[in-house]
């Protein structure tokens, strides 16, 4: 493993399988009466979050605590970022207090790479702008593998706001690397031009994209990143691209429905699908803790050429 985890693009398929196998072992710790191992005792981990987050931040913090690391959380809304301090200055100041790892969530793509150049601490990207969200793709892969026992040869359909989604990029990189057949679907305005070059099939026809899918992944419509009119109304979006039971019928009978959260019920997904028997959305959240424990453990050791 490299010093930092900035994106799926930094990993080899062997490293991805190592992370997934390690996750398997980490998950067992969460089922014990005492959900804690002493592995990262004495390590300090800073969770630096410049964007709102419930799942990812909580998940990282639980993972860190289960490995006995000392953790502290900095949210941009309560930090000196409010007083105009730049990300680089904040990072250097945190670095001066010698943490071992920094988990960064930031609205700008490449923020993790900036920190990686500035800091000796190991950097874990917990979502940078519209670029990557590697631990999400890893937990998605883990969840898929658990249900389907494999990744290669599966038809995985990703539907929604493709343009603004870092989850999409990380998932496409990971799934194509491990041999899945990836379809992406959404309104033409939300399909990044040239996405086929990543090795995926792009379509604006949801029934075609969903046909015989093993896995359907719904993405949130990211209103906060939309500066312009990408579709007429959320109601029309739901009618054209929302996941309903009727649309689900075109997929394989054992299809699983995934969503990285937070969900907008009635926009990209119908409530009876989100809560229905095919949904593994809460399993994804549960697996997220174990995946992050695996990543923290594997990065804490040391990088090649350190």
């Amino acid at each position: 493993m490299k010093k930092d985890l900035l994106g799926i693009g930094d990993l080899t398929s062997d490293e991805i399988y190592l992370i997934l196998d390690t996750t398997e072992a980490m998950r067992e710790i969460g089922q014990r009466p005492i959900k804690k191992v002493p592995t990262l005792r004495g390590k300090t981990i800073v969770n630096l979050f410049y964007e709102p987050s419930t799942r990812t931040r909580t998940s990282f913090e639980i993972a860190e605590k289960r490995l006995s690391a000392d953790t502290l959380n900095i949210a941009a809304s309560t930090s000196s970022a409010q007083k105009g301090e730049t990300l680089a200055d904040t990072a250097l100041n945190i670095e001066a207090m010698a943490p071992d790892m920094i988990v960064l969530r930031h609205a700008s793509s490449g923020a993790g790479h900036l920190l990686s150049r500035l800091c000796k601490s190991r950097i874990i990207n917990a979502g940078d702008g519209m670029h990557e969200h590697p631990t999400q793709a890893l937990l998605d892969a883990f969840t898929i593998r658990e249900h389907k026992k494999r990744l290669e040869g599966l038809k995985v359909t990703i539907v929604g706001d493709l343009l603004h989604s870092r989850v999409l990029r990380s998932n496409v990189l990971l799934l194509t690397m491990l041999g899945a057949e990836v379809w992406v679907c959404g309104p033409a305005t939300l399909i990044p031009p040239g996405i086929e070059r990543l090795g995926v099939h792009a379509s604006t026809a949801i029934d075609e994209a969903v046909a015989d899918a093993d896995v359907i992944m719904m993405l949130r419509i990211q209103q906060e990143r939309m500066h312009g009119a990408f579709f007429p109304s959320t109601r029309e979006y739901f009618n054209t691209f929302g996941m309903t039971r009727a649309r689900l019928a075109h997929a394989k009978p054992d299809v699983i429905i995934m969503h990285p959260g937070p969900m907008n019920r009635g926009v990209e997904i119908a409530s009876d699908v989100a809560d229905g028997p095919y949904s593994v959305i809460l399993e994804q959240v549960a697996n997220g803790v174990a995946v992050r424990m695996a990543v923290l453990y594997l990065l804490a050791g040391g990088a090649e050429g350190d």
Partner: protein
Amino acid sequence: MGRTLTRIAHEILERNRGVEELALVGIRTRGVPLAKRLARAIQEINGHEIPTGALDITLYRDDLMRTAVGAQPVIRKTEIPFSIDDKRILLVDDVLYTGRTIRAALDALIEFGRPRVIQLVVLVDRGHRELPIKADYVGKNLPTSRTQSVQVHLMEVDGRDEVEIVG
């Protein structure tokens, strides 16, 4: 090796006066097949089935974060499908050397509950202890020097049963 394990099985039954509350926990990697073989040996003697678990101690190692170079050791799953509370736990490993693995295993085991007793079974005791740890059942004492290494090969893992002294 088969005769040694049968002998240890008899010793276990003698010392614990039967199989009441007995459970076997093997330390990964080679303690696990050894624990299963011991369970079979005990079953052949008196027909009782002893619950058997597997313990991975990697996350409890005292040398884990000391070497800042190189990849982390691979961790595998701990599987103890029974409550260890008030059980008589037989901890099983292939080689007893410095005692550090057993120290880690004791730490790991205690997190699962409070056994009545923990006893230690090893196939080979090669000496050179660095911690005050002693085995309750020993297959064979093998006097070695520190420069040597003792490798236990098991059919289930390595395709053959053999104890090898290297160096």
